[in-house]
């Protein structure tokens, strides 16, 4: 199978869905002529023109809120927020309008809206361009949260997201854009809300998503050589959470480590741990362990940035401690 980069997989999903459905359009900061800050929309403006690939002003509230207005009046917008860090400006639109409008209206409207954004550390960009804020979004009922780790998942899940009649926050990771992986040339769509067991194992379950998932796979590979069999689950979608896949794995391995780049306090690992205790407490042979981001604003210095997020070694250490 051919291998393409993560950014390219997303680009293909956008192009295919725009070709298929004239109600799909893109807007955001620098998405048209420039092709996106991380070049994800490159070529789309030339292909689809000014009306369907729209550069906006630097106005996150208007971008996200106008996405809602267009979505409830017959369009299927894909709006881009350049960095997830900028979602703060648009949070009223997301929390008070987008997530609630269908419920508040007694189900009498649909919101086919995708908010594409990107997050994560790794480029020493400091505190305003490196965050992992998914827990903000998973806390809000009424939106779905998708965070793919591979080009294959990125393409299939974005296509599904664009076809959904519900609002979706789709978060890419800046350090994944140039990672490559197999992506079929034939069309496919992946289900939202379904985790993927990326590696089978029997001694311990490792749950993660986005970039940290790749660290988990490398850690699992090395641990395998030391005789520890790790099952690695890629959540892919955080909301709705595929808790059944996690519980099924824990019933087999009896041990659970959750790894994510976001802050530990109030992070999504806490939610997973609580649900596993509610549903599979008797199957646990050890406390659930979390490997998470340090509870500090992301520092600039590269050594401090590295210390602030999980990596292969810290994940391996957590696994070994749990098995000790």
């Amino acid at each position: 199978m051919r291998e393409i980069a993560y950014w390219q997989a997303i680009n293909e999903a956008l192009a295919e869905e725009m070709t298929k459905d004239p109600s799909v359009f893109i807007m955001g900061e620098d998405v048209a002529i420039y092709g996106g800050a991380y070049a994800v929309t490159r070529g789309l403006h030339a292909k689809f023109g000014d009306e369907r690939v729209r550069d906006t002003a630097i106005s996150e509230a208007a971008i996200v809120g106008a996405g809602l207005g267009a979505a409830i009046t017959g369009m299927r917008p894909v709006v881009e927020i350049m960095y997830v860090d900028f979602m703060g400006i648009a949070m009223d639109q997301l929390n008070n309008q987008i997530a609630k409008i269908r419920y508040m209206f007694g189900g009498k409207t649909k919101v086919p809206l995708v908010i594409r954004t990107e997050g994560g550390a790794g480029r020493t960009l400091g505190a305003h361009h490196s965050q992992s804020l998914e827990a903000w979004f998973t806390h809000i009922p009424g939106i779905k949260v998708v965070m793919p780790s591979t080009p294959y998942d990125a393409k299939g899940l974005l296509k599904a997201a664009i076809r959904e009649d519900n609002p979706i926050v789709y978060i890419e990771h800046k350090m994944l854009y140039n990672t490559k992986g197999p992506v079929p040339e034939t069309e496919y769509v992946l289900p939202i809300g379904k985790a993927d067991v990326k590696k089978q194992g029997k001694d311990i379950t490792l749950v993660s998503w986005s970039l940290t998932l790749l660290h988990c796979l490398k850690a699992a590979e090395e641990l395998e050589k030391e005789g520890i069999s790790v099952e690695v689950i890629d959540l892919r979608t955080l909301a709705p959470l595929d808790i059944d896949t996690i519980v099924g794995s824990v019933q087999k391995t009896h041990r659970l480590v959750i790894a994510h780049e976001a802050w530990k306090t109030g992070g999504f690992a806490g939610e997973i741990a609580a649900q596993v205790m509610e549903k599979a407490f008797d199957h646990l042979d050890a406390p659930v362990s979390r490997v998470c981001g340090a509870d500090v604003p992301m520092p600039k210095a590269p050594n401090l940035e590295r210390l602030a997020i999980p990596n292969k070694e810290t994940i391996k250490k957590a696994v070994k401690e749990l098995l000790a």
Partner: protein
Amino acid sequence: MSTSIDKGTAIFYLQKMMEIRQFEDKIMDLLAQNIAEGGSHLYAGEEAVAVGAMAALRPDDFITSTHRGHGHAIAKGGKLNELMAEILGKATGCCKGKGGSLHLADVSTGNLGANGIVGGGLAMAAGAGLSIKLRKTEQVTLCFIGDGATNQGVFHESLNMVGTWRLPVIYIVENNLYGMSVSVKRASAVTDLAKKAVPYNMPAVTVSGQDVLAVKDAVEAYVKNARAGKGPAMVVCDTYRYYGHSRSDPRVYRTKEEEKYWAEQDPIKLFSAKCVKEGLLSQKDVEELDKFVENEIEEATKFAIESPLPGDAELYTDLFA
């Protein structure tokens, strides 16, 4: 009369204004009796704005409403029974009892909803305007906002987007002089709110919000332009709410003299007097209409009170499509 209208039209405008007034008076009454619970921001006094503006629309045009949205919902064609039931949180309400006063919406009439957030409809209206442009229809979107919303950040982001892209959005600014208790003078760097359209390259006009025909004429002219692809505009309507911001408001920030002044500019009295003076309606026509509306409101109230609350199973429905 600023425009010539026929008797049927006069009756229609008067009826809609009376419906709003009596609807709001009834809710105040229900709140006092604790039959209606929670908050309600009442539109009494501002009827000519909603009715005049909506008179310029087609049924398939969109509106976004405000923090004070009952009048817009009625004027846009919402059913009184369903609106009253919604305010009481009943299963028969237009939002199945899940929205309430601050979230009155009826998408089937093009009403994209009142909003619990001041200025919450602004970005949505820009998106509805963009959707019209992309779908190449001749619809328009009326974005109702109060004077208070013109100070929100999203007001400026949204008007900039609409102005830049020349979207078919008309802003109807209901300047009732106070954002809750704080007067326009104390909250806004400019008190002539029409000036706030200028930086976004859209024309604006200020009219009496007590004069239903003046509102209609101003909105109609801009709507015609917007349908022809000539872009957005703003109509500032000077008006006044009779009740306080909400039921708990003792109105200490305004004077009795001011309230009396505005009571003399009552939009329903002004319009019915005009119609009678010009021979379009008789005093008897007006009285009969008032009685007719009273019956409508009584029926809506009875319907709402007798309707059931939503079933417990409704708690988790309607979250996702």
